[in-house]
């Protein structure tokens, strides 16, 4: 078989098997997420970014649901008071488990790190599912923690 055909076969097989196995694997990267990352989309963002300080204002207003996309383990150590744990890959693997709330509710997505592409991807995903007020907290949980803002700790 021609060299290029062989190379093409190996590359295509790797790709197809990779996507298939990931779809089957409960810890895999679902196709849904891969497709989302492909949508270059419009230049208009479907979500808003806020600083940690501005997010604290939302927290004090009591408006909005904080969504913690870190691992459940990290969430159990501590999290923003009142936040709900929906780990990043869980959001994409089982979107049906997302809390049943009104699509006009304010959602505030946060991750651990300063600049989280995961938080942006999650926000985009939620916006695509019809949520109209999605916010990403830039700075992440680490900045919230560093500023001494209200957290809930795991009860041992």
């Amino acid at each position, binding site marked *: 078989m021609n060299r290029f055909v062989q190379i093409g076969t*190996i*590359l295509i097989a*790797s*790709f197809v098997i*990779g996507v298939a196995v990931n779809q089957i*694997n409960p810890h895999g990267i679902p196709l849904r997420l*891969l497709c989302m990352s492909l949508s270059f989309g419009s230049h208009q963002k479907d979500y808003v970014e806020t600083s940690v300080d501005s997010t604290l204002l939302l927290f004090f207003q009591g408006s909005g649901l904080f969504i913690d996309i870190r691992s459940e383990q990290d969430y159990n150590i501590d999290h923003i008071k009142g936040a709900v744990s929906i780990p990043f890959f869980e959001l994409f693997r089982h979107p049906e488990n997302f809390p049943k709330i009104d699509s006009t509710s304010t959602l505030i997505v946060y991750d651990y790190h300063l600049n989280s592409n995961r938080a942006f991807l999650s926000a985009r995903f939620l916006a695509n599912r019809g949520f109209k007020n999605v916010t990403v907290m830039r700075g992440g949980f680490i900045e919230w923690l560093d500023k001494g803002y209200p957290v809930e700790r795991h009860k041992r």
Partner: protein
Amino acid sequence: MARQGISSREAQKVKNRLIKWTYLLLRIGFGSLLIYASIYKIGSPFEFAEAVENYRIFGTDLSLWTAVFIPYLEAIIGFALLSGLWSETVVLLNAVLMFLFLILVIQAYIRGLDIRCGCFFAEGESRIGLLKIFENVLFVVLSISLIKLNKIVKHS
């Protein structure tokens, strides 16, 4: 005269045997290495995607695609090397992979990125440092040797 002829033929036989065994050793070595390297990445694709993201060349999106594709490419090349299937093509792909990994590691080192290599996800997995670069250079050199040995073995 006859004695000299025999010894040069014998020397040639030894040389051929050496080439054949070195070739086999390198093929099995690389094959096993690639399969071993792919195992954890296949089991924990999100972690691998994060490791790829840490190289700060790809964003989250491309890192996810890389995590879906590369481990399976490694596994297929690994199995092909072990079985001897499409050897000419596979040794070339192997060398290309080793070269790409070397480039990634060098650029991470130059940019001073303090990250794990993400190559093997094994115990005592090393940081990006000169030793890691040396390791990758060695792999590139050996993979190029494998291409040359493959040519000799196929033509003999």
